[in-house]
């Protein structure tokens, strides 16, 4: 019985090692990620600015400071302003269409019906397939004269296999692929917002006598609005910074009609080897996703406050 008394005392011998110290552990847990992201994102970001102030190319990789020359030449180019306009146009049109289609798709993702097991993976295909591969597939679909897309372009008065020679059609194709590729992602984000609405509240609206339209407008929409905003901003950021779709689908053509800032930077930097110029254009692109990020935080914070 004496042992009981001894056992109830705190174990003095095991004072607790480093594995017990919460403050230390936090830093040990955080450090690898912080070091990694600093080394591979933050430093390169600074280096990108430095490169933009140099005339470095792939063939002449030695660093030499040239001041704002690359920025000046980019801003003086017609191609830059055209790419900026295209970036804004693609982003705006894609975002609106993605939110509209995504809202419909979100309801389909959440609904229960027969054959759901088949529909869901099919609907996820655009999101999960590497964009470069889906763009390749889209090219094949658009190039084939006997495909539904071929009938469509023919109906628009474009000769077989020549869709990429008409600026308007090529731009439409780029927007279509963006909308196609980002709608499932936006739908998943918005579906998450819809499931977060308590079932009790939706039931209450039904019992309170609200019809389907009133429920959608006065209950579902206001409560789902934050997730719709998040989906829109994510779509906008992913569209305006994307290289892959344009690079594979149209390669910026015809005649630079589908070139965006991101693809222009990529083409000049990676394919043309003008690293300094590519970096300069990419730095000029940065404000767009940053503005999107700021908007995102506003929305998320407002959601957290409620």
């Amino acid at each position, binding site marked *: 019985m004496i042992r009981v008394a001894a056992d109830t005392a705190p174990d003095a011998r095991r004072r607790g090692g480093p*594995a017990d110290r919460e403050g230390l552990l936090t830093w040990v847990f955080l450090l690898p990620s912080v070091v990694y992201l600093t080394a591979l994102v933050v430093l390169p970001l600074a280096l990108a600015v430095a490169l933009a102030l140099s005339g470095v190319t792939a063939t002449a990789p030695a660093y030499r400071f040239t001041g704002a020359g690359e920025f000046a030449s980019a801003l003086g180019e017609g191609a830059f302003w055209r790419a900026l306009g295209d970036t804004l146009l693609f982003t705006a049109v894609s975002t609106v269409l993605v939110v509209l289609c995504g809202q419909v798709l979100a309801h389909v993702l959440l609904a229960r019906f027969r054959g759901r097991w088949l529909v869901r993976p099919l609907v996820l295909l655009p999101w999960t397939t590497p964009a470069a591969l889906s763009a390749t597939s889209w090219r094949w679909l658009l190039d084939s004269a006997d495909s539904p897309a071929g009938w469509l372009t023919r109906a628009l008065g474009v000769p077989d296999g020549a869709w990429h020679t008409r600026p308007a059609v090529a731009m439409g194709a780029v927007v279509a692929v963006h909308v196609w590729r980002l709608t499932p992602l936006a739908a998943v984000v918005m579906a998450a917002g819809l499931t977060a609405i308590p079932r009790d509240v939706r039931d209450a609206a039904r019992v309170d006598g609200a019809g389907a339209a009133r429920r959608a407008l006065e209950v579902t929409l206001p409560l789902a609005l934050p997730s719709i905003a998040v989906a829109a901003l994510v779509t906008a*950021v992913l569209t305006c910074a994307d290289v892959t779709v344009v690079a594979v689908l149209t390669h910026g053509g015809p005649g630079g009609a589908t070139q965006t800032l991101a693809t222009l930077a990529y083409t000049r930097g990676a394919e043309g080897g003008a690293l300094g110029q590519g970096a300069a254009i990419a730095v000029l692109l940065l404000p767009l996703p940053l503005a999107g990020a700021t908007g995102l935080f506003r929305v998320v914070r407002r959601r957290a406050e409620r």
Partner: protein
Amino acid sequence: MSVTGGLAARTAARELARQRRRHTVRHVLARSVLYVLAAGASVLCAAPFLWGVVTAFRSYPGDAGVGAHVRLLLRSTPFPVFVANTLLAGALVTAVTLLLALPAAYALTRRRWGGAVGRALAVLALVPSALLMPPLSWTAGALGPGDSVWTLVLVQPTITVPVAVLLLGGFLRAAPADIEEQALVDGHSRLAAFLRVVVPQLAPAIAAVAVLAFTLAAGDFVYARALAPAHPTVAAGIPTRLAHGGAPLWRSLQLGVVLVAVPLAVAADLVLGRIIAASAGTADRTKA
């Protein structure tokens, strides 16, 4: 009962019957619209791949059917090498991502200042790869392992880590802290509680994040194309190395795309419910 009372009751009954019919019609209509939308969405989302399958199975003059396409793809193109590169880089990137993101997400969700760091992470997640590509390829030439799959393993986690930390943070916030606290009271250290209680509890979430990380890594085109041109993954290899041949090669190519796309979509579907739940921060209502 008076005559008028009976009349009133009959009118009410007629009105209710009308309402019931209206409700039934609306219900049937709503279900039909749902099925039409679901079917339409499936066809649209699968459109380019469906067309790829259709062209591979159609017989064209001078071309020996689907078996020949598969043989061409597997024997005469570097497609199998691309797949191997993708699997190797994807698996390693996924492992690195989880090793970095799991402890970081845990540290952030259990700390008050976690929100600010989370916001910083979100900014990093949004830095376009077009901007990081020039400095990374400049330094990779000088310092890095050069043109190899290892460069991708080093660089691609920049895409996946911020997203993984944010998503795992969502899962961790939804998981109750009391089980972990129980482990502390029961005599485990913080570290042991994390390894033996938090991580096993999080297993489904980890599976979801792993699928997502692999998908993102496999989807990377910019880094794979710029940093490892001699060792392309499928995303970098197919559009740049194979998409220049004639129609028979293109038809084989489309099969290759489908072979890559379908497993990724099926894997994502398996974890979709959890991803929705994590981003909503609530219990999973899409299942059950």
